[in-house]
């Protein structure tokens, strides 16, 4: 049944597209070494965040153990994670569920 096959193909394509469109998150993990002011400075410098937003994210990292500091497509997220690694922050990438 061609129509059904076509529908199936479309559904499959759609599901694949949705999968690849799921955004990625840059996660920064707490560590006992990096200074709190240093981490805030890096968030402002890398993402251009305001002082208050950078401070809030830094406190999230410190108190909750991790913070999601950026969401977006993988290439951009990887670029930001790479810059954070350049500053010595412990950052990883994970795809949102």
């Amino acid at each position, binding site marked *: 049944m061609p129509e059904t096959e076509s529908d199936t193909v479309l559904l499959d394509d759609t599901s694949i597209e949705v999968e690849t469109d799921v955004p990625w998150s840059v996660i920064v993990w*707490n560590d*006992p*070494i990096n200074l709190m*002011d240093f981490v805030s400075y890096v968030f*402002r410098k890398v993402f251009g965040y305001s002082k208050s937003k950078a401070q809030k994210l830094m406190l999230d990292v410190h108190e909750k153990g991790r913070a999601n500091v950026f969401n977006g497509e993988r290439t951009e997220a990887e670029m930001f994670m*790479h810059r954070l690694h*350049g500053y*010595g922050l412990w950052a*990883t990438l994970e795809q949102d569920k």
Partner: protein
Amino acid sequence: MEPEDSSVEHDSGHLLIYRRTRFGSKPPIVVEASADTRAALAELLSQYDLLLDPTLPESKRLFPTAYPNDPELEVGYQVLGISELTELKSEKISTFRNSIDKEELTEDEAEAWMIVLNDLRLVLGTKLDVGEDDDPSLMTTPEHHLYQSLSVVVGMIVTALAG
């Protein structure tokens, strides 16, 4: 993360880094340091050179895992990302080395100082297994003193850059 603790005495020699107070355009960042201190910084840089090999266990903290949940993507990142990171860190150390005798630093130079000295803190702190609640009075070895001195210096540069 570690809050800055100005209540602890650190033997970091004569070294002050701060942004000069001046009206108008953004003033430069000043380095006041004795010749001995600058020589000590140069010696530290030679040790940092050795850490730019990502295969060394001591260097692992400088080259973190990027995709802990995806081994395939991690392999790709290790191939390209790590070599770019090594190149970036080499550039920072060159900038630091070329400005080590300067009395005023540009923003880029101050950032290079901060990144290199903080990387040394990361390696040393990992080796010493530093924790957030460690009692500073128990950090008595020469390596602990170096770690604390680096903390003070990095804190000064962050304050100057953020100002």
